[in-house]
């Protein structure tokens, strides 16, 4: 679409010696187009190279590894066909970790979106100190996950943590927070700790909604709840949809349970409590402890396919539930017209 726009805007018509308007010399047009092409490729090039080196090549290499019994070190590894993939679907530990990951995703994605939206609505109100409150709520999201996890481990340590110290003040027995059955709740709280990210995106969406719509609704007698459900939510649905998709992908790939485990090092993978032993923990276990590079690569490829499938399902389910203020197709047509193409 921009091609047409720039083509029209680019060169003023060249006058012929006779004074009659002439078409642009083909050589100059080609030169301009070539320059534009070079500019495009110069900007896109680093990304394409990065994609090839850091995404396409590792993906291909991992795919090849997934058909071997490689331990990453020995020269004796051999081709095992689909054996690793067959094991993925028959290994009870893999299936259990996959199920736990599904439950974790189903719990945390709605929770973070609802909590983030709630906070966004709250800090979108005209209250005193709004800027400060927004900053304070967003601050935890700025802390790197490793830092947040270390803090959580210190807070929830059974023998020296602040959480049990607090219980101690009330003469209540301390709990082993980082072990089962409490560990999963600590993980969920840690996930919610970073809800500021969701809040800030929802806030941006809220501020994009024209105030006139709410004013008109109020004039028509709509209650605040009606205004929220009939105006805010539909207009915010593309933002929510974006958060659902990215939230699901992030949750399926999370390895945060290792960071809050009792021994957050590669050798401590085994110490991750069973309830927090999500799919990526199982993958790390196979890679780093088991030395099973072939099988772990198969696990990652299966996860990759699951993520694609889940994303497609979410897109399918979202039809009719997500409202765009500007139709994408319509926007394209409009832009073309404006560009004069």
């Amino acid at each position, binding site marked *: 679409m921009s091609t047409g726009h720039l083509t029209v805007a680019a060169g003023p018509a060249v006058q012929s010696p006779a004074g009659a308007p002439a078409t642009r010399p083909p050589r100059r047009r*080609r030169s301009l187009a070539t320059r534009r092409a070079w500019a495009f490729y110069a900007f896109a090039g680093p990304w394409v190279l990065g994609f090839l*080196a850091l995404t396409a090549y590792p993906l291909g290499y991992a795919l090849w590894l997934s058909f071997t019994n490689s331990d990453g070190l020995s020269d004796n590894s051999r081709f095992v066909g689909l054996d690793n993939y067959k094991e993925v679907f028959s290994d009870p530990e893999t299936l259990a970790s996959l199920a736990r990951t599904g439950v974790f995703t189903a719990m945390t994605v709605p929770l973070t979106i609802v909590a983030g939206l709630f906070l966004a609505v709250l800090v979108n109100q005209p209250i005193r100190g709004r800027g400060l409150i927004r900053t304070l709520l967003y601050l935890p999201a700025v802390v790197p996950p490793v830092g947040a996890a270390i803090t959580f481990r210190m807070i929830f340590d059974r023998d020296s943590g602040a959480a049990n110290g607090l219980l101690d003040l009330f003469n209540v027995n301390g709990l082993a927070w980082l072990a*089962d059955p409490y560990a999963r709740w600590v993980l969920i709280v840690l996930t919610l700790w970073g809800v500021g990210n969701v809040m800030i995106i929802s806030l941006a969406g809220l501020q994009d909604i024209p105030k006139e719509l709410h004013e008109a609704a109020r004039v028509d007698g709509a209650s605040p709840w009606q205004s929220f459900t009939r105006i805010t939510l539909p207009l915010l649905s593309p933002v929510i949809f974006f958060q659902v998709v990215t939230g699901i992908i992030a949750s399926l790939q999370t390895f945060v349970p290792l960071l809050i485990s009792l021994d957050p090092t590669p050798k401590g993978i085994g110490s991750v409590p069973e309830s927090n032993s999500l799919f990526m923990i199982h993958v790390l276990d196979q890679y780093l402890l088991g030395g099973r590079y072939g099988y772990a690569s198969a696990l990652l490829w299966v996860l990759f396919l699951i993520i694609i499938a889940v994303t497609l399902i979410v897109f399918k389910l979202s039809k009719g539930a997500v409202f765009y203020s500007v139709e994408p197709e319509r926007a394209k047509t409009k832009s073309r017209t404006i560009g004069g193409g």
Partner: protein
Amino acid sequence: MSVPATGSLDRRRFLTYSGAALGAAALSGCAASVDDGSGGTGSKSGSTTLTVMCQKEDLDIKAAGKALGLKIRYLQPDPAKLNALLAAKTPPDVVLGSGATDAPYFAARNLMTDLDPYFAKSTVLKRSDLDPVNDLWRYDGSKQGAGPRYGMAKDYSQDQMIWYRTDLFEAAKVDLPSETEPLSYEELLDLGKRLVKRRLGKVKVYGLNVTGLGSFSSLLGMTASAGGSVFAEDLSSVDFSSPEALKALKWMLEYTKADIGPSTVNPNPDGWDWPTFQAGRMAMATDGYWFGGAIAGDPKVAEVSRLAPAPQLGSSRISPCFGATGFWIPKESKNKDAAWKFFEWFFGGEPAQGRAAGGWGVPSLKSLREKMPQDKPYQKQAFEVQEQEFAYFKPLTFTPYAQKDALDGVISKVLPGAVKSGTSAGKVADELNKQMNALIAKGKDVLG
């Protein structure tokens, strides 16, 4: 958007060029990593960069560079990174590792340099001067302790020897352990129970820690002291169902259940024993003589610290070493001569003498034993106990088919649930056998 046909670049060509550039880069990377593995003689003073993967506190980089006339590049130890570098055939020149557990694993994968020719020529590191612990760095393809020498220990400990704090014993009105006779594990557990201090479900002072070097090593040593072995003779399986291993496992379950010290259920939040011991929150720690180096840094703790012999589960008194931490040279190192120069300086030069005098473990050269510190009362006591313990030193063989951390990982997965549900030791043994043997079998399958 279409690019004119006369343009010199189209999408397809662009992608082709990108792929070619990437391929060229990858190929040049491969070319750079090709080496005949001989080490050559390219270690010119000041121009060679020696890459060392070790803990920062293990090496004074500036002193190393100055003494050796080499540029030293330091890498933080990271098993995943090491594996990646080894797989890419661009490993560090010198790598920190455990002779007891890493040597068979890497040697079986043909990743280590045979150092026998270097030892044969060396005037600094003579084979006759090597402490027997260095045999843990030997592997002949089927067992540890024989065959080519692949590395050397920087120092070592008989790791089940107990450091204890006399002030915590006195506070609990408990008699101090003997300096000559080993405790039985039953007595040790009883002492731990008497020394632990709790409040409202929390342990304020640990009575004992036997898991400082991992639960698997502890079980290995306990089983050996009961007269058995966890590993089968060919090292291709474990058996926790044997009477000796089962006895060790029962004790470990009892220790974990008693909650008197760090365990797989409640690991030490400090990461290792020293900060806890220093803070007066651990009465006994099975860390061996090496721990004395840390104790030396705090005179107040040194005053109340004493060493006791390794406890025994049976009648065959042994005192094993689970570490023999030292260095090895990867087979694909580009600077083997420089790496050996580093070996001679680090293991036979000033750093070795400093470590020996500082109490950081028993020196790995017999000639340096006389430098072990005896100035302070705790040092003298520790030296005397250690002197008696040498007679019971026993190297334990480790499997080449799985890494120790993986076997520790299985214990961490199985034990917490078993303790919580009160599963019998026999069933726990069966589960450990099943999971560990599956892991070992897969490792064996790769090695062929």
